[in-house]
């Protein structure tokens, strides 16, 4: 809706909430990238910073929820405004979960830094992290631009992340079969990969909210799912 409200304070409220969401998105993206880098470079200090940074993300979510509650109470939003508020609250919840995953990633990277490295896998994880942060960023850009097509694109690109996860899953399985001593780091790395894959799912969730916001309808069940790890054909 390009037209502004007659009551300009309403516009300012919505804008300030939007700014909070953007800031939260930025923090989450940075946390995921930093955690992945800390994993690869075994930088415990950086991992520690990421863990500490999650508090700020949680605080932002709380602030966004409080703001939304206030807007609902005093502005009684309807139609697209109502959908905006509902969307923002869901996006904030999604982002908060992503922040938790980043924190978990950082925690596991601190454990992994005490062990022998598994060759190649941390690089894959970093590529994966890069890919999901891109998804996250695009989903948030789609929200800002109220661009349903861009959001649909994010939904489709989540498949790439799923494929990366599947590849990594097989790679870690190979490591574990080769040498049982690899099992502990491989398990940690698998959880990390799974968490990053979950971030991708949250990005998809945000994209779906954007589609609801713009069209008023949630997309149907046509969502592509390429998680072959649960298909049972891999001998897991």
């Amino acid at each position, binding site marked *: 809706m390009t037209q502004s*409200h*007659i009551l300009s304070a309403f516009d300012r409220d919505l804008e300030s909430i939007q700014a909070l969401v953007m800031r939260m998105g930025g923090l989450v993206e940075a946390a995921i990238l930093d955690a992945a880098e800390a994993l690869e470079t075994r930088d415990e200090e950086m991992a520690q910073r990421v863990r500490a940074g999650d508090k700020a993300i949680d605080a932002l979510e709380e602030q966004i929820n409080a703001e939304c509650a206030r807007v609902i109470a005093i502005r*009684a*939003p*309807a139609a697209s405004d109502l*959908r905006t508020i509902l969307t923002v609250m869901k996006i904030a919840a999604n982002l908060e979960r992503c922040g938790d995953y980043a924190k978990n990633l950082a925690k596991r990277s601190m454990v992994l830094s005490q062990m022998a490295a598994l060759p190649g896998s941390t690089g894959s994880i970093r590529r994966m992290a890069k890919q999901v942060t891109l998804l996250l960023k695009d989903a948030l850009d789609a929200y800002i631009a109220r661009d349903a097509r861009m959001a649909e694109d994010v939904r489709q690109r989540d498949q790439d992340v799923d494929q990366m996860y599947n590849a990594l899953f097989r790679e870690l399985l190979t490591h574990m079969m080769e040498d049982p001593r690899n099992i502990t780091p491989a398990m940690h790395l698998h959880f990390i990969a799974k968490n990053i894959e979950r971030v991708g799912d949250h990005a998809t969730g945000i994209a779906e909210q954007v589609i609801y916001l713009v069209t008023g*309808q949630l997309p149907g069940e046509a969502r592509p799912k390429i998680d072959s790890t649960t298909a049972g054909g891999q001998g897991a």
Partner: protein
Amino acid sequence: MNDMRLTEKVVTETAKITARGVQVHYGTNHALKDVDVDILDKTVTAFIGPSGCGKSTFLRCLNRMNDTVASARVTGRIEMDGQDIYDPRVDPVQLRAKVGMVFQKPNPFPKSIYDNVAYGPKIHGLARGKAELDEIVETSLKKAALWNEVKDRLAAPGTGLSGGQQQRLCIARAVATSPEVLLMDEPCSALDPIATAQVEELIDELRAQFSVVIVTHSMQQAARVSQRTAFFHLGHLVEYGETGHIFTNPTDPRTEAYITGRIG
């Protein structure tokens, strides 16, 4: 479409009033342009829209109150239960007994509470004898949720009641002629929030007996009390549909702009 379920439900309900191609001119002013609408039986229908959009004009077409405005000219077809209410054989006085009306400002007659309610039944000869009239007055006041407050002072002037009570008295007065449709022209705009809530509760109860059509400036009120909402803009009926749908996901951008407070 996600609201298929809702439209399905609507189709099974019967239309009480059907309007087709209704146009209203006030002199040279084209106030209402080609309005098609089905008012459902035993349903609250809200008309919303900015001032001068034609919603009150259309409401006053439904009981031919526009007849009293010399310059008004109504064309098109409005049917109630399949009968054209603008047929020359229809006496508007008789029609108005079937289509009651409640106005923006509480306007009780400067007479006693009893006489206010009894007036309609009296002029339409609905009661044989005093006992029957007493009964009509009592049931009407009960329907308007006013009986308990005024039963001890029926002879007191209606104008001495509080604003909310006055408006409920007006509703009782309208209900007393046992109408089939109740038209309400911004019935709460002169009331405080508590009185408004009481009237809204009343509207919800009355829905069991007649179809209620309410014009309101408060979109929240339309959302609260109605099942169907019609949005008028510049004399056009822009959108008409299930209230929940209109307020979460209107189809027309003008409706969207109006209910989100972007056009006046």
